[in-house]
């Protein structure tokens, strides 16, 4: 039996349980969802300009998008090294952000507004996807604890690329589900194109393609359709690579290739990257030290993992994917997220949203379909929501000290505009002074007057700095320090040039 058939029959069986209560009518459920969505938007917009403090990537994307507004795809250029565009991420998000800035204003707060808007659209699409797969009642039941998960609320208030990436991924899955339900080659092709858009919007979005491959393995049908999907996705990705190569690989300056390879090497662990988790122990320590408010989210996530593993065990015992078929898409989405990001050497906090959303959706749809009493089915997600939202509320004051903003303000007020500063990427993007990166400070060896170091639980300028940076720091005098939950920035006056 096909997955869709299983799902639809399952849904119909649920519908046959008796006369549908008034509040269970589809339009009522849709209206309830609209109210939930409003509440979701409100909780994400609450104190958005104040908390959380600016995150590392936000400053970088803000600076590049502002430069895009002025016609250059670049960060704040480094002193003493050849100019290069910013191609570590595909340019689409930055183009979109620049357009948003044109329309509404160019600050990190405005970037966050775009992220929240995107997430609201994402939830609307997720609701539609769940509706298609499991029916409106399960869709509403499952989406509420996801929308009000503490970690997701927190991370979605930051202007990460993932906020928009998720919109594309969910849109692609919706198209894919549509193709599964009414198979035709052009529906699969469209889904393939949408999946490829996710991969070229941010490289990590390629995990959605893997999810579809796994789903194909589970549902085992529409083989030609899936091949068309893969072909379309491959064609779009190839067109993107060729176009980017033509536009941004100049003779002797292969910017696109070099920067893309850097990202690939970072993912494969061949090149180190600051600020990423390297071990489960570090994750636990990080949770305890910096993210202790999100214990409820962790517990729900772990429960989802246990449920998924149990499902996998059922499949193994049955020597068939049939137990996973009713929830094939969500199971595949979650599994590909866990496996791919688990093996990737890059583990940034925002990546967890790409795993947690499918995990939560899988968990709560399984709970909705479980043979539990109504009281339990209401109580369990309600407890999760209350604990999550309560913990999130604590983060608003706790994460409001804006280290990066204070550092930028101090630099603007107290460091001469022509004084060269050696610092880290994000701070370099927030200041107006000429700057060199700590990772290669040699060009500023004889000119640097100040250094601004950065230290978090996961990274430190002193461990990642180049030998030239350490040379510069000899005899440096600490001037000012700003310490918040995100990290500690310290302004140093350098002894002088090294001569």
């Amino acid at each position, binding site marked *: 039996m096909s997955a869709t058939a299983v799902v639809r029959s399952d849904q119909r069986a649920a519908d046959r349980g008796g006369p549908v209560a008034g509040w269970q009518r589809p339009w009522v459920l849709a209206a309830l969802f609209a109210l939930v969505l409003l509440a979701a938007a409100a909780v994400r917009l609450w104190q958005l300009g104040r908390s959380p403090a600016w995150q590392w990537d936000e400053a970088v994307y803000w600076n590049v998008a502002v430069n895009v507004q002025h*016609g*250059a795809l670049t960060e704040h250029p480094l002193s003493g090294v050849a*100019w290069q565009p910013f191609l570590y991420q595909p340019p689409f998000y930055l183009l979109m952000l620049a357009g948003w800035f044109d329309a509404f204003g160019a600050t990190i707060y405005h970037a966050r507004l775009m992220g929240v808007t995107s997430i609201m659209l994402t939830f609307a699409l997720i609701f539609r996807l769940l509706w298609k797969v499991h029916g409106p009642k399960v869709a509403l039941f499952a989406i509420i604890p996801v929308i009000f998960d503490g970690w997701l609320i927190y991370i979605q208030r930051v202007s990460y690329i993932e906020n928009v990436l998720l919109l594309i991924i969910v849109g692609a899955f919706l198209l894919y589900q549509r193709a599964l339900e009414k198979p035709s*080659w052009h529906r699969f092709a469209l889904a393939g194109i949408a999946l490829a858009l996710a991969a070229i919007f941010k490289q990590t979005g390629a995990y959605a393609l893997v999810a579809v491959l796994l789903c194909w393995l589970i549902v085992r049908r529409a083989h030609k359709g899936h091949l068309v999907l893969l072909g379309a996705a491959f064609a779009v990705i190839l*067109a993107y690579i060729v176009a980017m190569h033509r*536009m941004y690989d100049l003779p002797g300056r292969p910017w696109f290739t070099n920067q893309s390879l850097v990202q690939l090497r970072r993912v494969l662990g061949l090149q180190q990257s600051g600020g990423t988790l390297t071990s489960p122990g570090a994750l636990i320590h990080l949770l305890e030290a910096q993210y202790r408010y999100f214990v409820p989210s962790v517990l729900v996530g772990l429960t989802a993992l246990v449920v998924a593993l149990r499902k996998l065990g059922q499949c193994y015992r049955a020597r068939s994917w049939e137990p996973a078929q009713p929830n094939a898409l969500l199971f595949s989405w979650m599994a590909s997220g866990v496996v791919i990001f688990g093996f990737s050497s890059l583990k940034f906090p925002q990546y967890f949203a790409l795993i947690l959303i499918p995990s939560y959706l899988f968990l709560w749809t399984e709970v909705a379909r479980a043979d539990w009493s109504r009281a339990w089915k209401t109580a369990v997600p309600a407890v999760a929501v209350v604990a999550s939202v309560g913990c999130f509320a604590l983060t608003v004051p706790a994460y409001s000290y804006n280290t990066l903003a204070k550092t930028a303000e101090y630099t603007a007020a107290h460091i001469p505009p022509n004084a060269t500063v050696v610092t880290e990427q994000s701070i370099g993007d927030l200041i107006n002074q000429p700057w060199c990166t700590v990772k*290669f400070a*040699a060009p500023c060896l004889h000119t640097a007057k100040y250094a601004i170091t950065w230290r978090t639980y996961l990274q430190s300028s002193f461990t990642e700095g180049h030998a030239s940076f350490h*040379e510069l720091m000899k005899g440096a005098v600490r001037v000012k320090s700003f310490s918040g939950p995100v990290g500690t920035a310290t302004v140093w006056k350098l002894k002088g040039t090294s001569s």
Partner: protein
Amino acid sequence: MKRLIVPVIAAGLLAVACGHPLIPKAALTAPPKPTVTPTPALTSIPLKPYTVQKPVLGVDLYSTNNYSAATTALYATRNLTYIKTVLHANAVGILWNLYAPSRTSNVVQAKKSSLTAANVDIVAKIAKSMGLKVQFRPLIFVPSHPVNPWEGLIVPPDPKKWFKNYFSTLYPYIKVAQKEHINEFVTATEMHMLNNSPLWKPFFKRVGKTYHGVVSYAAFWGDYVPPKGHLEPVRLFGMDMYKALNLKYNAPLAHVVSVWESVFHGVPAAVLKRTQLDEEGIAARRGAYKRPPNLGTPGIKDEQVQANWFTSACRTVVKYHMRGVYFFKVNLADNTLHPTDALSVFEGRKGARAIAACAKLFKL
């Protein structure tokens, strides 16, 4: 089908044909002008023919002081015997200190504590009489920076003057090298900040006019491996492998070896077979894999760490058909029968046995 394919192809073509959006014109037209020479390729010079030979198993004999001729001969005989008979090495690197007054000085000089050229000659003679291959490798120290006196941070304001002074200081030793027909003169070690200087080429040429053996240079590991590596214009290369490896102290040998080998991924085979590991040292200490150059850091003694590091070096040499390896170090004044407890020492430890085992690995 056509309805979908046509727009996709059209979009692709449009993107391909739209020039270089969001790149300032100046960046398109002006050639890149970095103040630091970019080094995309390891070396731009054509490599001269080289036939792979049996690898050299060397040990550095390091003199931090100068002694009378008689004492030098006594110490050298004692420790070269140890190097040859206990460690089964077939080569010795003779190391001594030269000094720079500061990192930004144009001066490099021999001091009273520098082993004189005459004493270097004595050590070289004894080594040759024992049938050992001989390498000279002077080190430069910056004593005004006691925390990190590393020569890699020397940035002379007048590099021309610096190279001239350095050659003058080195000249007596170069003459000894030629007189004794030693096998190799490693003219400098890990001059990281000067690594990209164009003045190395004339410097090597000048050394080669007096000394006709192998003139080489021991690169800081970061200046050797891609993507930032840039090799000096010499026929045969050298490097000091002190890269921090993210390994636990109890990592099995096979794991240490594979991580070691991975350091050289991306280095062309033609470069590898011309390369010698000129200095391999590590403390017999837990955690030393993560900071191999910190030989003096105190900690918990763990001889296996040192032994695994040394074995990994030898296996890497074999795997990549490299020229050889020199282990750092036996001090000239050491009494190898009663070695000190310092963690940097390998005498009398598993590290020494690992070096001796390399002789078998190299089929010496």
